[in-house]
Structures are given as C-alpha cells and as structure tokens.
C-alpha cells in the first residue's frame, strides 16, 4: 500500500503486469431498481460516447418499481462491436442482495468496485478491489436526506471515472443533457461526482488494466433508443392519430410521441396541432380507435407488445378485410402470457404473420437498427396507405428501451404517399367519364388498375356518391353486402393479389457476402450487432459466411435464392421454436431442409459468444 493512502481501505496489491486494455471491455453495474441508478448509468454511457468511444448500454431490469436487482452493462469497443458480452471485466456492486454473485462474475484480472457498507467478505485475490465509501461521501456532500439515495449513484460515477479514466468534462455534458439544462439538478449531481473523483484521486490507486481513452470513433453517430426513434419517425411520417395503452416495453414510444407533438407537429402559423394522441382504456380500444381513424383518412398508429397484439387480433382481421390502413408497433418482450415482461424477444413473428381468423396475410417491417426504427416509423404509413392494409413494425425491448449508438436520423427520401384516395373532384371526373362511356364509375372495392388495390374515399368527402358502408361481412366491388360465392372468392383472391404486390415493394434484405462462402446466416432485428461480431470471430477461424438481414415479411424471392445458394443457412433469432425458420419453411417448402435454426431463448440480447458456440456445435454434427 502506498504511504500516500490516508484511508483505512485496503486494496489488493496485484501489480499492473499485463498490458493495458484500452476501450475494449465491459462495465457491469449492479444496483437495486428504483434507486435512480438509471441516471448514473446513462451519464457514464454518454460520457464515454462523448469521448469518441463506441459504447452500448444494456439494462437488465425486473418487472418491479422498487427494491429488486437490476444490472446495467456498458460495453466499450473501439472496434465497434457493441453486442452484449458474457464477460464482465469491471463490476460495480451496489446491491447487497446480489453482491456474492456479482463478485464471482468479475473476470480474472478485472476490477471490482463496491459500496463499502456492504459487509460481505471478499475472497478474490485475482482482481483489483475498490471500496467506495458511498454513505460517507454523500453525507459529507451535505445532500438533503430525501435525495441521498438517488445522489448516491453519482459516487460510483465519479470513482469509476477516476479509476478508468473517463473525462469529467464529458460527464458534465452528460448531466447537462440528462437534466435538460436545469442548473439545480446539474449542480447537485455534478457536485457529488466531483467529490467522488477527488476522493478517489487521493485514496485509491489504479490496480487494474482497463482504461477508457479519448477516441474518435463516434463521429457521425448519435445516441438514441428505438422507441424514441419510432415515435419521431412516425411524426415525420405524418401520423395524425395515435392511440395506445401502457405496456412494457412499448410505453415510452407513445409517451415520446406525446412529448414531441408540440415540437414537430404544432403548426408554426396557426399554433394548431396536427396529431392527436389518445390513451385508450385497453388494447381492444386502442386498435379500434386507429381502425376508425385509418378509415377516416388519418395516418393512425398504435404501439404495444405481445399481450396487446393478442387483444388486437380481431380488429386487425377486420382492417385487413375492410382494407383500412393502420400501423402497429410491436415492441416485443418474452411470452407466452405475461412471460418475462422486461426481457427481450423476437417471439411474436408467428402470431403476427398469421394474425386473424380466416385467410389473412399481414405485412411486417423488421428494423435492424435504431435509425431504421426512425425510417420504418415514417415508411410504414406510406406502405399502409398504398396497400390499404395493416402494417406491423416489429421492434423489441432491447431496441426500444436501451440507448444505441446509431447513424443520425435521415429525412424521409420519398414524399408522403397517401395511396389511392379520391376526393370530390376525382369522383366528379370519374362520373363524367363513366357517363361518356370512358372508364367505370367508382366502386370502393373495384380493382380498376389490375393491382388488386382499389380506390377509397374517406368520411368528409362531400360528393353525394362518395359514401360507402365499410363492414366485416362479405361485400361486392361496390361495398354492398353479399353472400354470393363468386363475389366472396373474387374478393379474397384480389386481397391476396394486393398483398403479394406489396411484398415486392417492402424494404429489401441487406446482404453481406464473402467470396466462396457456403454457409449463410439469416436473421433480422436487434441481433445484427452480435451476428456481425460472431462472423468476425468465425472469419478469424477461417470460416466464410454470407449474411442476409431480413427487413420485412412476407419475404421476397431473393430470400429463397439466398437459401438455395448455400449448403446450410442458419436462421438466427430470439425465441424457442425458430419462428422465422418456420415461416420461411412455409414460404419456401422445398428449402426447409437447408435451414438450421439457431434460436436463443433466455430473454437476454444475443451475444456473439453464444452464437459462435451454437454454430460450431451444429457444424460438428
């Protein structure tokens, strides 16, 4: 121990023999939920990001308000690999209940920071130990007692920053952002951080090899979560109406819509809003409201998760059949039933693909990054309007509730497409043309263009011939009730033709190829980071892999071609039964035997280590 150390704390004396590890390790913070640790964790995340270090933050939290264990893992990677890892080099232990296992989780040679009021013997000799006098520092800072629990987390921010080497200016910037410039809150938190930094600089000696260093790899990126991106994308998509019901992990999506309507959807000239948000009494009503709004010519969206999707099934079937454009965001969590409501999943694929009784076909968009959540946020409305049908966007908890380093949101590159809507003058023109023997008079479900997409009118159109009666019962080309066998069959075939046409206009798969690869990886959504890293790891072992990331379902023919081109295609997803593989087996039955399912089930985001192991285990067979 250095003579300079004035405290009673002992630190392990392992010298820093091994070379330093810079910007390539994970920090896991174990806290009690409801203690305000989220602010502290986000502060660390943002400070690292501002240092130019690619970083991700994943919150593993309970379905609970206060008192249960929660973990937050920051991964720093100059190489840009930001998926979850199963190795924890640096651990911050703030929760007595998980202290023993948190200590055990530290990788050999790692660092362990802990709240020194937790009196549990520490038996590890192979790691650096940093005690933190949380209570003492909070007391000395003179924090009002009501705020002490919250501010306590800023102590570990300061101490970790000092030992790891996080730039305190960047911490200040992170706090300024977090508290939206509110000086009192910033000062309070900053004061605590600063005191902790000062204490650590005097009382602790660096005894591990993990360092954060200024880098330049975050230029051209922003930090955002998927729900925020989806909400903003929707507002840029011209959404007029949003109805929702609270459900983890989708709640913050609609809340963000509410937050940004006054910013982006208040007419600067008139001061009037152009978007309405209604919190419904349940998901049955939320979907009913958007079906009503969609029918009335509004761009309407709801956001929910699996249980909500179950409740929305009947109205979605009606919207498909009555041809009402609506957008539904499913921020997936683990089912069945209430399942693991605070864990991530890609388990609603099958349910949505086949959603509704009778023959239906639902369109699903599958964003693979946070910036794509923004893009699909606006694009979904164009597709729904163009094809007059429900469009689902499947995000998940990992995207929705975690902060991701992502490309900046791009302004929509195509104009708003409202599809085939007829107003008074359009109807009048058609009536005149029909009277002159040119063309046919308007019928709501008449396939004039041969693409299966009819023309629609919306309430508020004052032309005397504009109205029609929308219904879930059998109807003919003019919307009239019909039980005729031929009419029914004709209509159902037109609906199929219409959605078949839509498939050709959905976001195409993204493919990354290597020369001579005989193995294919096929996946979608939030697993992209882990898959890219796994491919990198496998490439170093000499394995060649082509990777196709699906961005929509039903799949276009190039998906079948991709499977055809490879000896084996591994379908990677977050569920038990390999739902994407099942769907692809239905779409491409001849290719079913060429697909191998790698389904990751435990509710945690995919890690590259898991994927490499799972792949190699399959390949050995």
């Amino acid at each position, binding site marked *: 121990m250095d003579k300079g150390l004035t405290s009673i704390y002992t630190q392990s004396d392992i010298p820093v023999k091994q070379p330093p590890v810079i910007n390539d390790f994970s920090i896991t913070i174990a806290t009690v939920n409801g203690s305000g640790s989220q602010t502290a964790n986000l502060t660390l995340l*943002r400070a690292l*990001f501002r240092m130019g270090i690619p970083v991700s933050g994943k919150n593993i939290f309970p379905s609970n308000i206060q008192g249960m264990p929660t973990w937050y893992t920051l991964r720093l990677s100059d190489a840009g690999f930001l998926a979850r890892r199963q190795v924890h080099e640096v651990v911050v232990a703030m929760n007595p209940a998980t202290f023993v296992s948190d200590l055990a989780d530290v990788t050999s040679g790692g660092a362990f920071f802990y709240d020194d009021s937790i009196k549990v013997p520490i038996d590890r000799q192979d790691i650096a130990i940093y005690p933190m006098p949380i209570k003492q520092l909070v007391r000395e800072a003179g924090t009002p007692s009501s705020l002490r629990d919250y501010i306590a987390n800023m102590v570990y921010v300061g101490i970790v920053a000092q030992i790891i080497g996080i730039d305190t200016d960047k911490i200040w910037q992170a706090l300024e952002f977090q508290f939206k410039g509110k000086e009192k809150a910033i000062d309070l938190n900053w004061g605590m951080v600063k005191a902790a930094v000062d204490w650590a600089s005097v009382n602790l000696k660096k005894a591990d090899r993990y360092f954060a260093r200024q880098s330049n790899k975050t230029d051209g990126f*922003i930090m955002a979560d998927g729900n925020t991106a989806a909400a*903003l994308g929707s507002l*840029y*998509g*011209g959404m*007029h*109406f949003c*109805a929702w019901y609270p459900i983890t992990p989708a709640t913050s999506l609609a809340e963000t819509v509410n937050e940004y309507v006054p910013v*982006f*959807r208040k007419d600067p000239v*008139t*001061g*009037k809003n*152009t978007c*309405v948000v*209604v919190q*419904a*009494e*349940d998901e*049955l*009503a939320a*979907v*009913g*409201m*958007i*079906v*009503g*709004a*969609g*029918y*009335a*010519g*509004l*761009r*309407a969206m709801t956001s929910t998760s699996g249980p909500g999707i179950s409740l929305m099934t009947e*109205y979605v079937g009606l919207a498909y059949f*009555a041809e009402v454009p609506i957008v539904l965001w499913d921020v997936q969590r683990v089912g069945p039933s209430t399942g693991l409501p605070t864990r991530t999943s890609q388990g609603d694929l099958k349910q949505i693909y086949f959603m509704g009784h009778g023959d239906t076909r639902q369109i699903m968009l599958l964003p693979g990054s946070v910036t794509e959540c923004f893009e699909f946020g606006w694009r979904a409305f164009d597709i729904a309007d163009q094809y007059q049908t429900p469009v689902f966007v499947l995000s998940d908890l990992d995207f929705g509730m975690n902060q991701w380093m992502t490309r*900046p*949101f*791009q*302004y*929509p590159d195509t104009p*708003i497409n409202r599809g085939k809507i007829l*107003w008074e003058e359009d109807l009048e023109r058609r009536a005149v043309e029909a009277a002159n023997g040119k063309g046919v008079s308007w019928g709501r479900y008449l396939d004039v263009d041969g693409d299966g997409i009819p023309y629609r009118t*919306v*309430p*508020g159109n*004052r032309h*005397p011939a*504009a*109205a*029609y*009666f*929308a*219904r*879930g*019962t059998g109807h003919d080309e003019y919307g009239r*009730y019909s039980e005729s066998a031929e009419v029914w069959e004709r209509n159902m075939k037109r609906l199929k033709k219409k959605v078949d046409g839509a498939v050709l206009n959905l976001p195409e798969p993204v493919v990354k190829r290597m020369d001579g690869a005989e193995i294919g990886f096929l996946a979608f959504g939030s697993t992209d980071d882990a898959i890219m890293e796994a491919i990198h790891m496998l490439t170093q072992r000499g394995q060649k892999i082509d990777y196709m990331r699906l961005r929509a379902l039903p799949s276009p023919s190039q998906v079948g071609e991709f499977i055809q081109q490879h000896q084996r295609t591994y379908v990677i997803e977050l569920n038990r039964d390999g739902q994407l593989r099942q769907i692809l087996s239905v779409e491409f039955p001849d290719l079913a035997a060429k697909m191998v399912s790698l389904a990751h089930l435990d509710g945690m985001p995919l890690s590259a280590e898991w994927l490499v192991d799972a792949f190699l285990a399959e390949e050995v067979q």
Partner: protein
Amino acid sequence: MMSDQVSSESSRVQVNLAGLTKNDYRGNPSTLCQGCGHNSIASQIIAACYELNIVPENVVKFSGIGCSSKSPFYFLNRSFGFNGLHGRMPSLATGALFGDISLRGIGVSGDGDTASIGLGQFKHIIRRNVPLTYIIENNGVYGLTKGQFSATADEGLVLKKQGTNPYLPVDIAWEALVGHATFVARSFAGDPKQVKELIKAALSHRGIAVLDIISPCVTFNNQDGAMHSYSWGKEHEVALHELAYVPPAKEIMVDYEDGQIKEVTMHDGSMVLLKKLDLDYDPTSRTEAMRVLEDANAKQWLITGLIYVDQKPPALTELYNLPQEALNRLDASRIRPPRETIDQLNAMMF
C-alpha cells in the same frame, strides 16, 4: 309545426332547407323482421335528419354487431358508415370522428352489443364525451342468434327455449348517468314522435348523447308481460314530459301556458321545449335523474324522455387544439416537419 306535415297533398316533391328530399335520407330496404322496433327507429332517424336539414354527407354512421348494428345500412345511404366489431363501435367512432371534426356521428348499437361485451367501451366513450349520438336499440334478447337472454333482460323473464333468466339486468340509462354522460334519454320505439324529437335533440348535443330506446323484438321477446314488449311498453310508459325540438334561430311558435314549459338550450342554439306532464322534472339535475330512474324501477314504469342533459362540457374533439380544416385533408407539407428540422432533431438526441 313540422315541415313534413305541410302540403302533404302537394304533387311536387317536397324538399327541406338543404334542398333534399326525404329520399336522399333513405337507406337500403331493411332485412330485419316485419314490425321490428329497429325499423321504426331507422325511420325516425331519417325523419329527424330530414327535418333538421342535415346534409347526409356530414354524418358518419357506426355500429357494432347484431340486429341493431345492421340498421345503419337502412338509413342515410349518402352517409359514410362502418359496421365494426361486437361491442367495439365506441372505439371505432372515437378514432373516426377525428378525421373531420365537422362531421356528426350516429352510432347504433343493441343491448347485446353495448351491455355485454361492449360495456367497457360504452363507459369509456361516455368518459371522453365523444360527439356521438349513441342509440341503443334495447330489446332484451339476442336476435341474430335466435333468442338468448341479453344482459338487459329482466330477472325472471321466461323465454321459450331459454327458460327463466336468473340474472339481474344492466340498466343502460343508469350506467350512462353514473358514467357522467352529458345527455341521457330513454324512449320507446312504440312512441315514434318522442323518439324523433329526442334524436333531434341528441344531434344538437355537444358531446355524447345516449339514447336507450326500448325496441321490441317481435320474433323472440314480444310476449305480453315481457318488459321489452310493445304491449308492456304501451301500458307502462310514463313520459317525463312532452318534447318539442326547436331549431336554432326559429321563433318559438308552440303555445303553452306559463309555467308549463321548461326550455333547454342546446350547444348549437337550438332548443328543446319540455312540456310538464304529471311530474315536475328538471333534466339538468343529476341527482333528480338518478332519483327518477330508481323510482321508476320500483314502480315498474318505463320512464321516457330527456332524463339528463349538460351542454357545458367540451366534446373530446375540442380538447386537442386542432385546426379548422379537417385533419384528413391537410396537405402533406402540413403533416411532415420541414427538412431543416432534421438537424435540430438529431441534435436533440445525444
């Protein structure tokens, strides 16, 4: 007093102030049973809209599932309509009425649709004061599935195939009142004049107007002694008042004695004149309304008329600071933020 009574012998086609004939308000021929109360209500909706000079294109119709919910097809063919899901017409209407807030909504539901699966949405559309005339054609049975008890069937009601109803009924007017509906009326399809005047008043109301109309099912529940039958209704109807609807800016021509008339001014400036009958009733008092409903139940009266009205609370669509133009007509440039905002947006992220 009413325009359709004038010159009925005239050979030229009668038009209203909107320049429309009664034909312009008609729907498709009804496929409901002969004598069904619902047909009578559909006729009164037509008559009310005609007499109010409402342009049919300014109305949107909604319904759920059941015999009653088919009826929007039998009136106002020139109005848009949406036949939604069982019990979930209210949510459909809530969303649709934002499309163009100058439109008036008419929702038609039944006792099966509203008082069973739809009870939740019924209560919530009331809570939100959605500007909708919400008519419940209440007959105490499921017609389309051939005569099962509905949730409004009286306890002890005996039906041929079902036996005796063991459960207590849901009282729709009560539920509306308890839920703070701003307009609650009860009527009887066998009293078409009252039905028509109440529909007119409802169409002039600012927010949700609930009309619980006893509408006998001639096929499954019209036996003497059944509470939802024509004969029971005729024998037990006790009107709270005689109603006369006076359109906005029209001189009151009805000649009543002083102290016999209560005037209720509606949001659009029209007036409902309530002529005092046996009961001295004030429909602007919620406590009074509750008392009279409870009293009627105890006395086995079918109390009809305007039970409660409050014109002050704003309708849902007034709460959102929306533009004058219909949302569904806004130009693309008004609903997509301009290009230069994208940098501002990205700067808002971290």
